[in-house]
């Protein structure tokens, strides 16, 4: 077993197991807590080994592996707290970060809302570790993406994309006796295939790299690029759209920052502020945060060591709740739901595993039921225009098609939309059965969403391509 003097490094760590084992994490956390001279101390330790094989123009052009670990100490002196982060885990590094956190606490003003540290709890087991992902080699990743590039080149197309394999471990501990440890893996295959005037895209996120069959997935991007060759233009206006799961996830994910966390709600900035218990969107709409949904890349606890709870946010169109960390929970006189975000967490607690309830239709059925409309593969560069209206603008990208009489008939140039997220959900007429996860920031903010058919979706501009 390693000691903190000799924490695992690229040179010494296992290349197939967690970048930090439970025993190693316990040693580092125990040593870090013991270095602190403060009344109370919390430690957040995260280790990551991330490999990514990236390709463009049908060749591998970037290929990286990076190993890091970070330790954050939060200390309390009376009602004051201070925090410092380091990636030095030897004894002198731990002492320095503990001293710095204490110095910051002493210089900080008293915090009237400083919550108690979490108490020891039992954490429901959540298996997030797949050994095959952690053991992924550069040779395997190259061999996986090679056939995608070959298939694109054979059709005179141009493939670009990336295959990621990430192994990480999170440990949280405090001087009240909390210790929580979770090893995780994550993998993603994403691919864009371009012709001279069109493009197609595919994007999948899984714990298990073996679930990502790059060649099969790449064929989806190739087909979209082929089918959208020579795209035509359409006039801005309101259209019935069929949104693939990624496009829905992009829009629903915007709600995270528009006000599904307690801080935005308490500050009156949330779109749900003052509307709790009211119907704010369609009755068919249910959104919750559920770490235990096997598709949702959840964690069993947060960085304060609080067990994560499943939280209903919007139920049958009615605003039902927000997620809490310990500080915002104390303000509202409730219990934390276990949604503290890694420091500095300027936006307060946020949902991690957002799940939009699905329906019973296949994507093909949604298209077949549409007399005249537009199929959107994905949205891109989406930004909030108006918080209270949940008004968002963005572009379509990599596969936008005309639907006529229930069939995709031709490709379309990309369109700009300006659309309220809640109105989009209100106007949903068809709900897909199959939901896909999209992870927006590696392990962290995942949105699980089905395809939707939506009426009166507002496009306001057109691109020249």
């Amino acid at each position, binding site marked *: 077993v390693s000691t903190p003097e000799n924490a695992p*490094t690229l040179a010494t760590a296992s290349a197939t197991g967690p970048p930090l084992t439970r025993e190693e994490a316990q040693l580092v956390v125990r040593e870090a807590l013991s270095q602190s001279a403060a009344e109370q101390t919390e430690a957040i330790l995260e280790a990551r080994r991330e490999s990514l094989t990236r390709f463009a123009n049908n060749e591998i*052009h970037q*290929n*990286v592996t*990076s190993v890091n670990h970070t330790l954050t100490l939060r200390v309390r002196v009376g009602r004051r707290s201070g*925090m410092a982060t380091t990636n030095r885990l030897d004894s002198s590094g731990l002492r320095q970060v503990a001293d710095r956190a204490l110095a910051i606490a002493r210089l900080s003003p008293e915090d009237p809302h400083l919550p108690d540290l979490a108490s020891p709890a039992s954490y429901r087991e959540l298996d997030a570790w797949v050994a095959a992902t952690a053991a992924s080699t550069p040779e395997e990743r190259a061999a996986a993406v090679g056939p995608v590039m070959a298939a694109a080149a054979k059709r005179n197309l141009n493939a670009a*994309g990336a295959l990621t394999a990430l192994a990480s471990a999170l440990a949280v501990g405090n001087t009240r006796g909390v210790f929580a440890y979770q090893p995780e893996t994550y993998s993603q295959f*994403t691919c864009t295939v371009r012709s001279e005037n069109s493009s197609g895209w595919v994007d999948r996120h899984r714990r298990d790299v073996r679930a990502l069959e790059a060649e099969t997935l790449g064929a989806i991007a190739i087909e979209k690029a082929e089918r959208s060759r020579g795209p035509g233009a359409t006039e801005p206006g309101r259209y019935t759209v069929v949104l693939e799961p990624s496009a829905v996830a992009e829009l629903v994910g915007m709600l995270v920052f528009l006000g599904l966390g307690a801080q935005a709600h308490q500050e009156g900035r949330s779109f749900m502020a003052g509307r709790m218990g009211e119907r704010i969107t369609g009755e068919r709409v249910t959104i919750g945060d559920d770490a235990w949904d096997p598709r949702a890349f959840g964690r069993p606890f947060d960085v304060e060591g609080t067990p994560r709870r499943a939280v209903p946010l919007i139920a049958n169109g009615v605003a039902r709740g927000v997620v809490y960390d310990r500080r915002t929970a104390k303000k509202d006189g409730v219990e934390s739901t276990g949604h503290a975000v890694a420091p500095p967490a*300027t936006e307060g607690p946020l949902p991690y595993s957002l799940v939009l309830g699905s329906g019973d239709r296949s994507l093909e059925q949604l298209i077949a039921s549409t007399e005249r409309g537009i199929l959107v593969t994905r949205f891109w560069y989406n930004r909030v225009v108006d918080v209270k209206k949940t008004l968002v603008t963005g572009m379509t990208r990599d596969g936008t098609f005309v639907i006529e009489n229930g069939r995709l008939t031709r490709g379309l140039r990309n369109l700009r939309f300006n659309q309220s997220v809640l109105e989009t959900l209100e106007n949903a007429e068809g709900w897909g059965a199959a939901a896909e996860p999209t992870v927006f920031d590696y392990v962290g903010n995942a949105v699980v969403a089905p395809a939707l058919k939506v009426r009166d979706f507002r496009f306001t501009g057109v691109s020249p391509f």
Partner: protein
Amino acid sequence: LDSIDLFRGRQATHGGEISMNDILDRALNTAQLGGASYTEARAVSSRSQLIEVRNREVNALQENASLGLGVRVIVDGAWGFAASAESSLADAEACARLACRVARASARFRRGPVALAPLEPSTARYETPTRVDPFEVPLADKIALLVEATGIMEREPNIKVALGTMQFWEDRKHFASSEGARIEQRIVHSGAGIAAWAAGNDDLQVRSYPTSFGGQYEAIGWELVDRLDLKGHAAETAATANALLTAPVCPSGDATIILDGSQMSLQIHESCGHPAELDRALGHEANYAGTSFLTPDLLGNLRYGSEHVSIVADATAPRGLGTFGFDDEGVPGQKVDLVRNGRFVGYLTSRETAAALGLPSNGTMRAESWGHIPLIRMTNINLEPGRWTLDQLIADTEDGIHMITNRSWSIDDRRFNFQFGTEVGYEIKHGKRGRLLKNCTYTGITPEFWNKCDAVCDASDWEIWGTPNCGKGQPSQTMRTAQGASSARFRNVQVGVGYGS
């Protein structure tokens, strides 16, 4: 530059005295033995400080320190990269060996070997000029300033959130290449700003000072914070946020607009800086950030904008977040033309991409940290000043809207179709600034828009604005860039999009 011995503290715990050069040498030598035809080793020691005060309470206060080594190699004509948080000789060897293995795996799927534009290796030191080291200013003073500024803003009615932010960064970099380069740099960035959020009847409005995204950021020391005078601007900032609640909404239709320098900065960033990145134009970013409408066949041929539009990439400009001595390939920072009198004449390049066009690199490769490879990033993308004072330009405008401070931004993946929103707008009628307007937006197609530019303000209105949050690459990297600009006028622009029917 002070003697930077990044590893002195660490090596002391192991009882040995190993110099930085030993670590870098070990990485270079190991890679050479592993078959690398080119190697660069980059050790970086970073620290940062973030302070956020909301309504007089400290909401976030974090100090971060990070140290590590990244090794990038070419083996069998392909790139490989490995990085580690640790920095022993054993880790330098492990990084170099793994980078070579990764490169070999890449080499099976190359259409041709990577070629680098030639470079004369440098031995040099560079340091950001600062008057007051921001890490030496007492924390209590920083917090007190933000508590006071947010307290002033809270006095204004309807202010729900009064926000004050400061951020400081320091990167100490050691770079060595197998071509013989040895470069040490210390880069310091500082930033600060305030913002007020006002909430009314189903409306939420924000006003920031001196601009959004947390304020102004520069390659400079604490003297920036002194110059900004956050307290002195707090009352007016909050009053404007409150006034926006009852202000009329920006009209919809075609209009003449004058954009302030900070909004121009983001307009330049998104619609000139990004499309001028040669890696995007060559398809390297096709799967993530996107490509570019500025394809190589247009270089020297495209009328990008009107004759009033001249844009340079200048890594030597004082105070810019894109100012440095050398990029992360060891290429000296320099000033080059991107757009000259409206014509598209240059790209931002790296050694690999420049070689594809038969050019030398113009030195724009930067990595977020020791754990990331360098990518082509904007340096300081500066619109050259014109001849008008802002007062003259407003007086010359019969009917228009003066839009100030970015609130929202979006642009397509080739950088054609954009939509921006600003925090505030003012009507211009008969050469005079009139009513405050809220929810201002405008949209356009990049080259059409820049060709509608008929006036650019002079140096009295020019500032180099920092952008602290530019995203690019897989794994995603965040970079700090800058864009220098003064106010400028554009004719017949579609405004009010998003809020109409």
